[in-house]
């Protein structure tokens, strides 16, 4: 067919030729574009054909889901022995959290999922309350998971003091400064009063569960979520501090970052578990899990600071100059202009650090906390179930993969959403 001719300047926009799109084109270009390519495609198909049916059979069709011990498993079927995982499922999830109190963990988890959806899903109904919910969740979670009189006393004291201080701020004092000091005084007094009263009376709504009973996926989630939510703001502060014009702040931040990055996490965890008790005054009983949380957070925040510093450096100097030229102060200029751009650039690095932190949480095994891997190893020592390490490690791997892949997917979604110019 001859090409239609147009007068110069009158050529209309035409759709692309048919053969240049669609799946046929993709297959032809990607799988069968050259003899080598064809050979590799066929070879790969052959391997997949050999491997996939075997894997499928081992995992599903030949697997045993109900059995009393390993021997029964082997007698029943040749594939995986998921009965082992099924029997230990609760141990993997809760660790040694008392059985009668596990409903508290379940409620916390449901609340956690709801909070995450509220915070991350832009179209979620009730999103205007996300800051209140986001601020309340950690306290509710602490109360539900740890419980006990002194935790409740602290939370109650905080909540009551906040309400009273707000009330005082609204009603008393004739100028701003007086109102501030009155409300601060009210806050301190109410907090001390409620705390003393609560502990003295020994009131307790939920039974105290000691943190050394925590384990399994629950422990991973606690360490991961706490570390992730705290290390980002801390990392931002460290990155900004490292760029500060004030030498004391600058060198303190550099020193902190370089020290933490230069030391293996395991070392820090050992410091947390043993050496801190030498530094702290005798008699202070500093919760081991709390120490681990602090160390993991500090460790991740040092990495986070460097990732964010990279993002800050990628924001053109003209942006700060434009903000300066308009008379914006440092705080608003950073918060409204520089940081949104720097954080957007750093998303891949930030999520990378998140995932690293999340997976590093298995290292707590070296100081005696039983994360899923620790539970798995302990379970493998059971004589009834020996030799089932593939099942255990695969199970733990799938758990980690699912959570990490979810984080990665959300970060890609976020990158697309925040993209405002032309895509490069």
């Amino acid at each position: 067919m001859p090409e239609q001719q147009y007068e110069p300047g009158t050529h209309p926009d035409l759709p692309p030729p048919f053969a240049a799109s669609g799946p046929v084109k993709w297959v032809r270009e990607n799988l069968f574009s050259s003899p080598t390519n064809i050979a590799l495609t066929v070879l790969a198909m052959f391997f997949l054909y050999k491997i996939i049916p075997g894997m499928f059979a081992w995992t599903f069709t030949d697997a045993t889901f109900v059995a009393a011990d390993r021997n029964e498993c082997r007698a029943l079927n040749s594939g995986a022995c998921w009965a082992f995982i099924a029997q230990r499922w609760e141990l993997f999830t809760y660790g040694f959290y008392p059985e009668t109190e596990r409903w508290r963990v379940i409620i916390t988890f449901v609340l956690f999922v709801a909070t995450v959806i509220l915070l991350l899903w832009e179209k979620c109904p009730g999103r205007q309350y996300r800051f209140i919910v986001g601020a309340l969740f950690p306290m509710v979670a602490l109360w539900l998971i740890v419980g006990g009189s002194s935790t409740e006393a602290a939370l109650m004291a905080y909540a009551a003091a906040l309400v009273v201080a707000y009330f005082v701020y609204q009603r008393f004092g004739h100028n701003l400064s007086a109102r501030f000091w009155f409300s601060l005084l009210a806050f301190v007094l109410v907090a001390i009063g409620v705390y003393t009263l609560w502990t003295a009376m020994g009131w307790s709504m939920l039974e105290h569960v000691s943190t050394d009973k925590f384990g399994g996926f629950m422990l991973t989630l606690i360490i991961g979520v706490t570390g992730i939510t705290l290390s980002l703001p801390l990392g931002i502060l460290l990155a900004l501090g490292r760029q500060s014009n004030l030498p004391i702040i600058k060198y303190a931040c550099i020193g902190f970052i370089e020290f933490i990055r230069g030391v293996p996490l395991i070392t820090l965890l050992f410091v947390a578990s043993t050496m801190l008790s030498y530094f702290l005054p005798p008699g202070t009983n500093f919760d081991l899990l709390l120490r681990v949380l602090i160390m993991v957070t500090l460790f991740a925040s040092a990495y986070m600071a460097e990732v964010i510093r990279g993002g800050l450096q990628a924001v053109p100097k003209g942006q700060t100059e434009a903000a300066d030229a308009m008379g914006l102060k440092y705080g608003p200029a950073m918060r409204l202009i520089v940081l949104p751009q720097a954080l957007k650039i750093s998303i891949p690095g930030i999520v990378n650090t998140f995932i690293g932190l999340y997976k590093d949480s298995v290292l707590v095994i070296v100081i005696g906390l039983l994360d899923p891997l620790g539970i798995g190893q302990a379970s493998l020592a059971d004589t009834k179930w020996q030799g089932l390490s593939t099942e255990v490690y695969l199970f733990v791997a799938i758990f980690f993969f699912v959570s990490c892949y979810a984080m990665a997917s959300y970060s890609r979604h976020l990158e697309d959403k925040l993209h405002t110019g032309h895509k490069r």
Partner: protein
Amino acid sequence: MSTEKIQQELGDVAIKIRQMHKWYGAFHVLKDINLDVHSGERIVVCGPSGSGKSTMIRCINRLEEHQKGDIIVDGVELTNDLKNIEAVRREVGMVFQHFNLFPHLTVLENCTLAPIWVRKVPKAEAEATAMQYLERVKIPEQALKYPGQLSGGQQQRVAIARSLCMSPKIMLFDEPTSALDPEMIKEVLDTMIELAQEGMTMICVTHEMGFAKTVANRVIFMDEGQIIEQNEPEEFFNNPQNERTQLFLSQILNH
């Protein structure tokens, strides 16, 4: 000097620069700059690249720090005092060669940010003002787009509107058309000419000699960090006194 005393002495002088020097390390960039800019004056600064034109106007809103001499802008002396610097920056708008729009904010948000955060104007009012200025630079229909979706000329007009939203008393232009395609230069210059005709105090670093002839009260020629010559445009272009000015003009006008 007290602020009142400064203002008495200044009269209608918007910017007063006295014996100002600046160094980058050991390099002496600006040498003994003396300049009075009266309210409503339109000044064009030209000169070969590296002559310190941009550095000089960037000293006026303290994007660059001078090391010697005095700069008094709108009655406020520029010192290390952040209060003074912020006071000057509130009254002085600046337009950059590379626009420096905020890419993560819409055009409208770019325009309302400083009024809301610096002047504490309510959001609705700031938006109404911003739309007014966007209409003046003839792109109100782009208000909800992001800067990355606009052409260079449109972006520069947004940048001008953004500065105007702060109702500045003085506008600084740092080579506003140098990064633009030829077909877009005119739309930006037209906006600037309109602004000049409304009586805005302007200092403009530019190589657009046509613009200088149309709107400038005074053209300043700089070379090697010094003001070599300044005159009314007609005299400046037809009868340059200094040898270096003559050489520069012959290079940019005859090609």
